């Protein structure tokens, strides 16, 4: 990271940094539309149909244009600087974490050897920006949403990190590029790809725990307590409007993609093609990687329209008395498996 940062010229850095940004923006436009379509289809509706012709594909663009034009309302009693700053900090945190995601076999924002650790560290700032937004709004719903979010994210960071650690125990490297490269090939039972999810039964358990935790980390149903619209209006976003609110939305979707891509990297072979050498190469690897990530995002949306929301105490119960012990036991078991085999 430092080598790159100090010796490449600034424009190259900017171009390099723009690639994940473009991916995030395009993804957010598609994902918001897709979320509404998935919601519609699951409820036997059609979802947005009118903007842009085929299945309302331009709906998110229209929404974005609308949001740009909206007034930027700041409540009188809000803490002005923090109120204005929080959405940008939230997006910055989730955007910065994309630096260590290996998007393709030949592209990674920053090939540092603390990869996953950096990602987890940077995303922990998200929590703080949510508390910041919740407190600065000077609104009870916002504050409650912010506090819930903080409690939730701090709690669920533990099982997330513990399950990431199980994979790290297997790979022995924090660098996500190395983690991905270790999953190349199709050797399991002769045809299955060497993905960690197939390598070891305990890693399957780890994936289940990891997936539940990232649902909570990215505030998705059934753990969307910070913005539960039926009780807290919109949680920490209540007072936001226009582009600042759009930044929150973007950050949420970026976070969702980030954690899904992390899951795809850790458990589903990252940019590796499921068919060995067939359809591999820089472009195809990007395709496979995004496909895996977006499938996980789809599962998140699918779960959103299936399950109801948990209560706060149930949320904490699931985390502290089920997921955390289970993930640590699982960590030990994976380590034992690695020692034995």
């Amino acid at each position, binding site marked *: 990271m430092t080598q790159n940062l100090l010796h490449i010229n600034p424009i190259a850095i900017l171009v390099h940094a723009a690639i994940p940004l473009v991916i995030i923006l395009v993804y957010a436009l598609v994902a918001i539309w897709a979320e509404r379509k*998935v919601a*519609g*289809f*699951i*409820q*036997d*509706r*059609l979802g947005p*149909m009118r903007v842009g012709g085929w299945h309302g594909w331009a709906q998110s663009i229209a929404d974005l244009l609308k949001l740009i034009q909206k007034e930027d309302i700041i409540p009188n009693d809000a803490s002005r600087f923090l109120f204005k700053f929080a959405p940008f900090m939230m997006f910055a945190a989730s955007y910065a974490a994309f630096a260590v995601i290996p998007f393709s076999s030949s592209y990674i924002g920053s090939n540092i050897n603390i990869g996953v650790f950096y990602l987890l560290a940077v995303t922990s700032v998200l929590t703080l920006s949510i508390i910041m937004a919740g407190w600065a709004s000077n609104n009870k719903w916002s504050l409650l949403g912010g506090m819930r979010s903080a409690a939730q994210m701090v709690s669920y960071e533990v099982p997330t990190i513990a399950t990431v650690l199980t994979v790290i125990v297997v790979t022995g490297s924090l660098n996500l590029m190395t983690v991905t490269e270790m999953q190349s090939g199709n050797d399991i039972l002769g045809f299955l790809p060497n993905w960690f999810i197939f390598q070891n039964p305990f890693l399957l358990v780890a994936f289940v725990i990891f997936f539940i935790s990232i649902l909570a980390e990215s505030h998705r149903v059934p753990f969307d307590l910070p913005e539960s619209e039926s009780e807290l209006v919109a949680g920490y976003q209540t007072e936001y409007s226009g582009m600042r609110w759009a930044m929150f939305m973007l950050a949420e979707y970026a976070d969702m993609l980030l954690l899904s891509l992390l899951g795809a990297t850790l458990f589903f072979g990252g940019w590796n093609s499921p068919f060995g050498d067939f359809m591999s190469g820089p472009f195809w690897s990007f395709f496979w990687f995004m496909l895996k990530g977006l499938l996980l995002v789809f599962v998140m949306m*699918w*779960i959103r*329209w*299936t*399950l109801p929301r948990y209560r706060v105490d149930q949320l904490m119960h699931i985390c502290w008395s089920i997921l955390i012990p289970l993930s640590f036991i699982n960590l030990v078991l994976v380590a034992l498996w690695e020692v034995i085999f």
Partner: protein
Amino acid sequence: MVEAIKSGWITFKSIFIGMGVTIRHFFGPSVTLQYPDERPVIPDKARTKLYVNIDDCIGCHLCARACPVNCIYIDTVPATSDVDLGKTSTGNPKRFWLTRFDIDMAKCMYCDLCVHPCPTNCIYMVPDYEYSEFDRTNLIYHFSNLEPAMVAEVKEKAEKEAAEKQKQREEMMRKKAEEAKKKQMEAKKPPQQNTDGETGTKSDKSDNGDS
């Protein structure tokens, strides 16, 4: 331990069953009707919007009387003897000018009760359900096809005729009174003249009763 595994199993099983249900609906057909582009087929007897075929209306007020919310307003003027208003398509002769036939669809409760009493089936529901208005007064539908000038003329004529009739009636009353006097005076004589007068009035009455 066994209990915990069991409950965990049940949890995941129920989650997967739920997800199975949702994914089936995901791929299933949608029930949405793309409204302005596609419209539902309205059933035959749908109660949507009242319409009056004014050519068939004989001005009998039956619908207005049937209306539970009094949203039908009818004013009639009897036709003078010099005009023939013709007959309805059901063959009933028309005897009244309909100077006003208004239905306030904002008040209407879509009960369909006005439709059935109509002797000529001229008031009925038409399958039109998109008639929202920005102004409530626009929801009062005027079905009378008489021009205001015409209305005035007709009214004037009718008044004149009514006045004439009144005069005639008074005349008649006077005659009757006179005849009654004559009767009294000539009680012994058989009242031959009287029968003529009576038959005349009778035939008038029977005509009125038919209409």
